[in-house]
């Protein structure tokens, strides 16, 4: 890391040249380091929960502590890791490069959104040590408990509010960038599909996050002024809170997954040396998912109290989301057909993504169907499902993207053998950790419990062992990446033979991205 934008002159020194930089590449890496630090914290909390659950009746942390631990784990993983996730790190770094721009449309707002992010994180973490102790509501902050509990919910909620602002501003920035800063000749139908996925995500970030903002503000208002919107004693309705919460938080699921789908769509053509199958269908299905994603929030509330008509409508709409998702999966698989496939770490993660995401997606349908939903609602089945989509889906795609663009970002190559070993540990560990949870949930073990009946002992033990395998994979991967960033072999500008614009500039890219502004004359994946 001794060339390109890393050595660009700056008015600031040391760390200040990063935290006050408006260069989208530096901001992307700022997000990257902060995000992965929080991921490691979240992972440690996850390991702690799994250790607690290794056998029934093991009590080295109290029930109250357990409540705080899963709340914190959820808040960190959702709001600090997976929602900013791919857009804030890879999107920031690559979006301008992929469309042939020098930076995003509003570089200073981009920096501001990182500051919102880090302040939000600071609030969330301060809430642990101040006030009435760490929040214990679960990451969903459901009323009435979140209004009554004496723990420090207000500060944590305010932190999440700031994180929401950060996410909204990123979406706003990306949308404007894609509309305004495409290089000459970069028509909409020549955009790389990762850019399309960021575009769809941008709209969701823009149009859904404000609902979260107002909902969180209302929790704070309720706590301080007792207005009573959600308090039945004053005529309010707690279920309305759930509606507002999921009107944001279900679309947020697509904020998490769409960019991940975009990443794997970039990787597949490169490693099978073949143009992507069904470009238009993939681009439009992103928009389709974003659109339908708005209309299905009710499926989180099938057991909360809703008329049968609305339940059936929400259930039907939920099934409809499976169509654009299915279109993508089939297009990916079809793209391999007759390709010249080269199995490198990014591709392994991509394949794992397709496999794990399909399991997550299909079990989603189990919950989308009304009859089975009643059986699995609030059980470990849900915990398994959302880890399969968020971790097995988005986070695996994120890792795939990190390996894929690692040579572009650092100018060096990671160690392939170590990367594959780490992948193997992750994949095996992941399934050992989460698959037993499907079984547990089906048999009726409730989520968010700090202890369980003896008949659930074996799957829980297997699951805990899985968490150790998984964690060792993560650590191996982190060590490999950090060491290779310092001392890996020089990678050259285009080690994979990629065709999108970011591979046409040097690695790492210069501060201005391109020596001369590129002129685009063909589509993104022209392999003959």
């Amino acid at each position, binding site marked *: 890391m001794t060339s390109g934008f890393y050595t660009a002159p700056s008015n600031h020194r040391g760390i200040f040249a990063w935290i006050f930089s408006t260069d989208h590449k530096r901001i992307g890496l700022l997000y990257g380091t902060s995000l992965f630090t929080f991921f490691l914290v979240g992972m440690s909390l996850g390991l702690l929960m799994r250790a607690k659950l290794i056998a029934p009746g093991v009590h080295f942390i109290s029930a109250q502590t357990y409540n705080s631990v899963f709340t914190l784990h959820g808040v960190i993983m959702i709001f600090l890791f997976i929602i900013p996730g791919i857009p804030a790190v890879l999107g920031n770094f690559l979006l301008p490069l992929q469309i042939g721009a020098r930076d995003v449309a509003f570089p200073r707002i981009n920096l501001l959104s990182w500051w919102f992010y880090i302040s939000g994180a600071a609030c969330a973490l301060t809430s642990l040590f101040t006030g009435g102790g760490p929040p214990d509501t679960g990451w969903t902050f459901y009323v009435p408990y979140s209004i009554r509990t004496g723990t420090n919910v207000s500060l944590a909620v305010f932190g999440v509010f700031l994180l929401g602002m950060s996410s909204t501003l990123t979406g706003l920035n990306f949308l404007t960038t894609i509309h305004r800063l495409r290089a*000459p000749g*970069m028509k909409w139908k020549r955009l790389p599909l990762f850019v399309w996925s960021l575009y769809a995500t941008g709209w969701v970030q823009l149009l859904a996050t404000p609902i979260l903002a107002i909902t969180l503000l209302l929790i704070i*208002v309720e706590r301080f*002024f007792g207005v009573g919107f959600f308090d039945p004693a004053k005529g309010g309705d707690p279920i309305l809170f759930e509606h507002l919460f999921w009107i944001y938080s279900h679309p947020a699921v697509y904020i998490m997954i769409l960019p991940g789908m975009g990443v794997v769509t970039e990787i597949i053509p490169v490693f099978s040396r073949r143009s992507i199958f069904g470009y238009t269908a993939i681009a439009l299905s992103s928009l389709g998912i974003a659109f339908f994603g708005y209309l299905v929030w009710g499926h989180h509330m099938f057991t909360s109290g809703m008329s049968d008509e609305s339940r059936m409508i929400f259930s039907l709409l939920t099934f409809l989301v499976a169509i654009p998702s299915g279109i993508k999966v089939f297009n990916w698989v079809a793209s391999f057909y007759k390709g010249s496939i080269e199995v490198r770490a990014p591709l392994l993660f991509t394949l794992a993504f397709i496999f794990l995401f399909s399991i997550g997606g299909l079990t989603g349908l189990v919950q989308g169907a009304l009859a089975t939903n009643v059986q699995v609602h609030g059980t470990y089945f849900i915990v398994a499902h959302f880890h399969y989509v968020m971790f097995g889906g988005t986070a695996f795609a994120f890792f795939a993207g990190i390996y894929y663009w690692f040579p572009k970002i650092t100018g060096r190559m990671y160690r392939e053998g170590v990367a594959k070993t780490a992948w193997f540990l992750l994949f095996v560990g992941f399934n050992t950790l989460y698959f037993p949870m499907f079984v547990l949930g089906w048999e009726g073990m409730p989520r968010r419990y700090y202890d369980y009946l003896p008949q659930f002992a074996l799957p829980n033990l297997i699951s805990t062992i899985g968490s150790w395998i998984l964690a060792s994979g993560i650590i191996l991967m982190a060590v490999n990446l950090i060491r290779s960033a310092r001392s890996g072999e020089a990678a050259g500008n285009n080690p994979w033979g990629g065709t999108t614009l970011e591979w046409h500039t040097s690695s790492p890219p210069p501060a201005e991205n391109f020596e001369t502004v590129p002129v685009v004359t063909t589509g993104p994946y022209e392999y003959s």
Partner: protein
Amino acid sequence: MTDAPIHSEHKDYIGSKLGMWFFLFTEIILFGGLFLLYSVYRSLHHDDFHRAATELSVFIGTVNTVILITSSLTVALAINAIKQDRRASAAVLLGVTIALGLLFLVNKYFEWTGHIHEGIYPDSPELLAKSHGTILFYGLYYVMTGLHGIHVIAGMAVLAGVLVMVLRGTVNGKDYVKLENSGLFWHLVDLIWIYLFPLFYLIT
């Protein structure tokens, strides 16, 4: 709005305005959550809302509506003035807009304190003794006009910043997109009030 990609990173007016419009969408949705609560609770407690609304002062509400609409006019005139490079009049018009915003807040202050003196505020014993619909009506009243009031203050701060730039000449006849964008924001603040006014004062 044209969609032709451009490639100068320095001044992209269309880009700035596009960004501003995106931001305005988020504001509308932020308030949208509250409008949603309003419509649900209104349909559940129709009569209570009806009765409670008669207790708000239509007079103050109307005055404030007129004030805000006038301020939208003055900010539009300010934009017109800056387009013709008449910086002095633009500055004066901006000053008037800010003053009108202040006037609006003063009225609002008297209105709120009036209710508070009568013991009508969230969680007050007097209010809790009333029907559920009334509690919710006043809850919505305070939260929605309160959030709107915060936006008025923010708008005034933004306009004051632009005013300084006009005086310094950094916002001028050639480069006035900052003024246009703050004007857009101010119109939005106005527009939201145009909805709040009938919902709380007029539909009785």
